[in-house]
């Protein structure tokens, strides 16, 4: 389970060592894409805790969401509407929702483990 975290750290390190600069005018699109990616990742973790995870869904969701978010932001710029703000709000809500869900799952898991340990302890004592 630590491998995804390791992947994230390696990605951050690589990204900071090899500085990939994109043109400044695309910075907003990349930021929205990052939000979409983060949403997908958290959604993946949420699915893992709910035992509903599917790798293909994650992969396709990640790429489609990031590209769609960046594309929407670009389209908004073209037609003169700040559509990237809509993406920021939407993905922001989803990110907080996913984090909340993960937190609940973690708490439930923790409680479940504690309950199991307590039941094992009772048997030992008896």
């Amino acid at each position, binding site marked *: *389970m630590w*491998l995804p975290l390791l*992947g994230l750290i390696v*990605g951050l390190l690589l990204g900071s060592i090899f500085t*990939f*600069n994109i043109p400044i005018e695309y910075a907003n699109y*990349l930021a929205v894409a990052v939000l979409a990616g983060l949403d997908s*990742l958290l959604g993946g973790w949420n699915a893992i805790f709910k035992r509903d995870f599917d790798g293909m869904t994650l992969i396709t969701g990640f790429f489609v969401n990031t590209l769609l978010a960046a594309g929407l932001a670009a389209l908004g710029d073209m037609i003169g509407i700040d559509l990237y703000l809509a993406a920021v709000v939407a993905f922001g809500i989803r990110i907080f929702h996913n984090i909340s869900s993960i937190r609940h799952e973690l708490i439930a898991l923790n409680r479940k483990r504690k309950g199991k340990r307590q039941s094992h302890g009772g048997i030992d004592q008896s």
Partner: protein
Amino acid sequence: MADKKRKSIKQRNILFLSLISFILGVMIMTSIHTNHSAIAATESKTREVVDYIETLEAEVGALEAEINATREQIKALESSQAQEETQLSYLNSLAGGLSVRARLTDMEGPGIVITLDDNAVGAALAQKNNPSTYRAENYIVHDKDLLYLIRALSHATEACSINGLRLTDASSIRCAGTIILINSARLAPPYKISIIGDQKELVSALTSCGTYLSLVYRGIPVEYVKQDKLIIKAYAGAYSTNYVQVTDDRINFPPPDDLLP
């Protein structure tokens, strides 16, 4: 078998998750770098704009200083021009005064006109009646008659001309045979002496002077007329100096020809 498959799927899922995490990590850092670059570029542009504005402000300051200096120059020139105009005006009035003193301008004013002529009638009678005692010079106007007459009136004279020839301080009245030379010009009778001055004083001086009485005694036709507006022309001759030299080095004498009226 089912466990093995489930394990394989789980490993694949973790691999996908790790891959996505890795990509997201790179994306996050790229986004951060891009934002930093954008901020740095904006700051650089801002600095450039600030530098440009400061340069422009310095240029504006220099131009303002230049404008002020030019204004001062214009003010100084205007002042200098006004001073020159004042000096020119003074010199003009001085030159005008000197022209009047040198009799180089036309003058007008009240005065008297004295007319003298040879006593032709008396001469003819004397020649006829007493040819032995007849002397022609007793019946003509001589240069000294004019000279004495003018001198007798000089104290009341401001401008004087004889037959239109202006008399100056350098004028001469001489005789050459039967004609009189004034300012080297030959005159013939009748002689018309125009004098501007106090009419009363002129008439008084004329009628009381010996020359006038002598002329009347000799029967020379002499008469005078008062005129309220008498015009006397300017002296048209030249002032020639051959021997005199000015001792004051500051005075440019003789003056250049173009300065003479």
